[in-house]
């Protein structure tokens, strides 16, 4: 039992290191080779965890071999278009100029129902509004609507947009987030001044987000948004 506990901790650490070395990706965004390596790593890791007869080093070596292969393949796919095509395949245009390409759909084994479902997933409920639809290598569908069906932007309706940037959390749970404050090029005093103008104190704030143009959002502890 003790040995299984220790082995599990060791394998957990090595699997985590391996996955971190491979880089951050969500399962759905993975390329085929990344998905295969992730599944294999999880499978390989369980063998020395469950079977105490097996040396842990065999599992660790297998994990790192997979990680090395994955990194080398990802570098090669970055450098060579041909290699990328072989390893990851190519995106396929399913709808072109409003015309469904049935041959392309057959090639990717996609049915009309699949296409409708994927369009709905993209908030497109009327297929006639689609100008282009591309099936990406990770299996997601990228959709471009006809110009007439695209939502109007502020530019289209000639309204001047208010300047805004990415809001960063500057206070969470009553504590300053130093990294965000320095990333915005301000000081804690600047944040405090804003709070004072609203008669609030830091310790009462659940979340405060701020952008570089001074736009902010405040949520007090125990209060509704």
């Amino acid at each position, binding site marked *: 039992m003790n040995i299984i506990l220790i082995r599990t901790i060791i394998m957990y650490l090595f699997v985590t290191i391996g996955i971190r*070395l491979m880089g951050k990706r969500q399962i759905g965004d993975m390329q085929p080779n990344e998905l295969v390596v992730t599944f294999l790593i999880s499978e390989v890791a369980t063998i020395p965890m469950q079977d105490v*007869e097996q040396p842990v080093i065999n599992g660790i070596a297998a994990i790192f071999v997979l990680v090395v292969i994955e990194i080398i393949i990802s570098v090669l796919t970055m450098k060579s278009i041909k290699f990328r095509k072989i390893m990851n395949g190519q995106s396929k245009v399913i709808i072109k100029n409003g015309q469904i390409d049935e041959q392309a759909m057959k090639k990717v084994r996609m049915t009309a129902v699949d296409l409708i479902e994927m369009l709905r997933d993209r908030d497109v409920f009327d297929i006639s509004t689609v100008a282009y639809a591309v099936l990406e290598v990770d299996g997601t569908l990228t959709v471009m609507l006809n110009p007439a069906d695209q939502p109007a932007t502020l530019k289209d309706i000639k309204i001047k947009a208010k300047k805004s940037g990415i809001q960063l959390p500057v206070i969470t749970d009553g504590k300053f987030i130093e990294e965000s404050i320095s990333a915005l090029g301000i000081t804690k005093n600047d944040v405090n001044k804003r709070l004072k103008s609203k008669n609030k104190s830091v310790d009462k704030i659940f979340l405060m987000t701020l952008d570089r143009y001074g736009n902010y959002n405040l949520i007090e502890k125990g209060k509704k948004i």
Partner: protein
Amino acid sequence: MSRLIIAIILAVALIALSGFSYYFVNNAYKTVSDNIELCKKAFLSGENTVNACQNAKDDWEKKGKILDLFTPHSITDEISESLARLYPLAETESDEFLAECAKIKQKVKIIKRDFQINLRSIF
């Protein structure tokens, strides 16, 4: 780029580990085989069999600890058991001693064979 460097370092470390394990298993095979041959000779001549067995056991204890890192523990445990069984048999004139020696040699040979790169080991 840093990931690629880490991958290269890992690859080198894995190759080094693989090379070391291959060398170590071959070395352990040779040591155990030689020791078992000495035990057999001593047994057949009736001289210093216990000492030869002790040497074989001592050498195995050193090698076995590291071998456990690369090979399934069950096989190294079986070799340890067989070596321990040689003592009581050394003082008899039973053929079981020779049979036990052959068993040990065979088991070490299996470990060595599993480390050889050939179609059988791979598939």
